[in-house]
């Protein structure tokens, strides 16, 4: 029997769809012109890029000139945050950003960088315990000097859906009676496959996404920027993308992104239904059949592809490794699998204890997963958790007992 290979990490990346790959291939060695060149080689590239821009405009219900191609969502998010702040001018105050404590690191760190450079002040909002941001908490955080609100559409770790359209409507109302406009940005990277991304329905001024999360290639993405948005460029060079993003266009990547969006527009609803059914099977069986487990994030406001489960008395990296050996690819919020050795900031933001964050596994499904794969995964989760719990025994309880008696020092913390 060949070793099973079950991919449950679509939140990290997805395989490139065959149709997408085929669309891209001519743009490597045949139609290789620089899209900015004025000869016929360049025109081939330029035409392909503009066709992809049109596909993106259709998908997001935008104008083609509002679509800026980038190297991916990390760049898009950096451009949105830093670009707005660098253009913002507020009389007598620093521009203020409102974002959430459980954004992707590229948003958190871009906001953090603006704060550190003294260019902005930032409010990081905590989500509710179910991993959803309340519209009210955003509204209450608004100040006269607020210029940017950035809230992700779907959380990348726990898959929770944020009320973007409601926040957008609230900001629109707010903007009607203020001097300086508040721009609204959403990182829609994990949402594009499953949720309505019509920028007018959402009321967003900017929206980021990456091709590789939607069965497109890595290294390409886009930022939708509503017409009239005052934004500075953050990368200097040529006048590409209406002067908003310098750098030779990644023609094959952009072609792939266009195709992936076209396919997503066609198949999304059907795929979402199928994937949600598998996700429910996975969550229901795991929680019912494995003791001391719980779901992280709202069951109701949840991406169809995300199951994030914590296992008590289990450390996530150990579980990830046993699953890996059994041919199942997942990810974990454990510090031990990260370079920072810090537990997931997302799980801490929804109030999980450190050990609960360490004991979490994220399984993100895709359109090619099957029921058989899910059932095999549940069996392996069961076996692996049992094996790890045998090794951990009573040590966690013993630790807390010893701590009460004052016989353990927090010596281990010193190493960070």
């Amino acid at each position, binding site marked *: 029997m060949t070793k099973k290979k079950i991919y449950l990490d679509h939140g990290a990346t997805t395989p490139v769809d065959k149709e997408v790959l085929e669309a891209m291939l001519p743009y490597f060695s045949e139609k290789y012109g620089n899209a900015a060149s004025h000869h016929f080689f360049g025109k081939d590239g330029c035409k392909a890029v503009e066709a992809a821009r049109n596909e993106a405009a259709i998908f997001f219900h935008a104008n083609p000139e509002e679509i800026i191609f980038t190297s991916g969502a990390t760049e898009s998010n950096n451009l949105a945050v830093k670009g707005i702040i660098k253009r913002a001018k507020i009389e007598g105050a620093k521009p203020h950003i409102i974002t959430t404590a459980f954004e992707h690191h590229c948003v958190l760190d871009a906001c953090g960088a603006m704060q550190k450079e003294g260019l902005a002040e930032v409010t990081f909002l905590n989500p509710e315990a179910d991993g959803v941001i309340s519209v009210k908490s955003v509204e209450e955080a608004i100040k006269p000097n607020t210029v940017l609100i950035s809230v992700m559409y779907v959380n990348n770790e726990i898959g929770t859906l944020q009320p973007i359209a409601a926040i957008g409507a609230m900001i629109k109302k707010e903007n009607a009676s203020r001097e300086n406009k508040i721009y609204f940005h959403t990182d829609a990277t994990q949402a594009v496959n499953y949720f309505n991304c019509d920028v007018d329905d959402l009321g967003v001024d900017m929206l980021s996404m990456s091709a590789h999360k939607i069965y497109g290639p890595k290294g390409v993405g886009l930022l939708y920027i509503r017409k009239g948005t005052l934004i500075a460029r953050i990368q200097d060079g040529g006048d590409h993308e209406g002067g908003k993003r310098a750098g030779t266009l990644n023609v094959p990547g952009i072609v792939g992104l266009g195709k992936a969006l076209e396919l997503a527009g066609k198949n999304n609803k059907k795929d979402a239904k199928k994937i949600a059914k598998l996700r429910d099977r996975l969550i229901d069986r795991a929680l019912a059949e494995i003791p001391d487990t719980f779901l992280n994030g709202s069951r109701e406001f949840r991406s169809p592809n995300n199951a994030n489960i914590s296992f008590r*008395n*289990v*450390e996530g*990296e*150990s579980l990830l*490794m*046993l699953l890996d*050996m059994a041919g199942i690819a997942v990810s974990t919020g*454990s*510090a*031990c*699998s990260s*370079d920072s*050795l810090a*537990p997931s900031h997302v799980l801490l933001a929804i109030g999980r*204890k*450190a*050990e609960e964050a*360490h004991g979490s596994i994220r399984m993100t499904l895709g359109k090619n997963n099957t029921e058989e794969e899910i059932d095999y995964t549940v069996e392996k989760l069961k076996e692996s958790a049992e094996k790890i719990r*045998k*090794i*951990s*025994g*009573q*040590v*966690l309880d*013993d*630790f807390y007992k*010893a701590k009460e008696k004052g*016989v*353990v020092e*927090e*010596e*281990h*913390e010193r*190493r*960070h």
Partner: protein
Amino acid sequence: MQYSKKLIDHFTNPRNQGRLDKPSATGIVGNPVCGDLMKIYLDVKDGVINDIKFETLGCASAIATSSMVTELAKGKTLDEAEKITRNDVANALEGLPPIKMHCSNLAADALRKAIAEYREKNK
């Protein structure tokens, strides 16, 4: 993360795993914030580690280093066992990824702590 075959072996088939009913001494170290907790159980006879067991909540390296430290310590005198260093544990596992070096630190610490408790009790 690249792990050696030896480490994978000790992670998937940990030696001396479990508890001792009447240990001569125990040592618990670690911190749930970091994600690694380890408890060592010692059975000491005539100054020699006659039996040793462990329970560990942690990553693959933490489990493997716990297993290895018990193998290195078993049968040794307390004076010998006390000298086991983090590098000894890492080397016996044919190396650890640099970021995981703290896990072997933890294992040797737990052993030393158990030995210290034994000495304190039997002064």
